[in-house]
């Protein structure tokens, strides 16, 4: 099995707020991330596809094709957007790194038709990232 990883970046705004919590609870649980004016990150996304190389091409999948999928499905959907307001797939969910990574998995998994989506790794900062393996690993 070969694991192929492609990396992209997108910049987005968000904040954390649960309307079921009181303002005090929101501030206690989410800290600075609760500021309703929002803040932003340069997210780094690493998408890993697992598969066997095609003997005819030597490739698990065409990286250009993966690049196009990532551009269409992630960059166009999320780059320079406000995750609380502008990404319908996150509606009703707090846009934590966990929830964003799971959402990205759900968006990408059906689009990867050569090889199999193995891992979505989403960095919110260089020191904080979430790995999503779908139901696998």
């Amino acid at each position, binding site marked *: 099995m070969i694991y192929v990883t492609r990396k992209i970046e997108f910049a987005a705004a968000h904040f954390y707020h649960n309307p079921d919590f009181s303002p005090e609870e929101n501030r206690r649980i*989410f*800290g600075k991330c609760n500021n309703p004016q929002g803040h932003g990150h340069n997210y780094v996304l690493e998408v890993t596809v697992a598969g066997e190389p095609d003997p005819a091409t030597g490739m698990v999948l065409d990286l250009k094709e993966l690049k196009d999928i990532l551009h269409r499905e992630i960059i166009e959907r999320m780059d320079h957007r406000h995750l609380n307001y502008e990404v319908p797939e996150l509606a009703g969910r707090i846009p*934590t790194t966990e929830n964003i*990574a799971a959402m990205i998995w759900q968006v990408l998994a059906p689009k990867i038709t050569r090889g199999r989506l193995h891992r979505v790794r989403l960095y919110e900062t260089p*020191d904080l990232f979430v790995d*999503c*393996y*779908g139901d*696998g*690993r």
Partner: protein
Amino acid sequence: MKLELHRRYRFSAAHRLWSPRFTGTENRQLYGKCANPYGHGHNYTLDVAVTGPVDPSTGMIANLADVDAFVQREVLEVFDHRNLNTEVPAFRDRVPTAENLCVEIFARLKRFPGARLVSVRLEETGFNSFEYQGDSQGGLS
């Protein structure tokens, strides 16, 4: 959906690799420069991974503030700007290799109450790293 939350921390510490089980010549042969008598140090980077269900009310596996406070108390306050051989009890009679550091850090962090510890990965320099998932039979050696 299987998710892991990874958080990176840094600490700086001194150590010396030297085992009383070996002769001086054997130690120098085995550990090379790391056996120099006065010790040396590294800027360590620690990657801590935890897993568990995402709480729907917070969107989180674990609250980062809780993870940070636990790692601060259990690891950083114990190891940062310390001499691992002389100031960390676990290494009084064990060689503070990065492997043994990983096992000791895992043992300290697996008590974290907010989520299940998956792995600790320790970068001793930018060129070597060590990962432990808590599956070793022998523990520290």
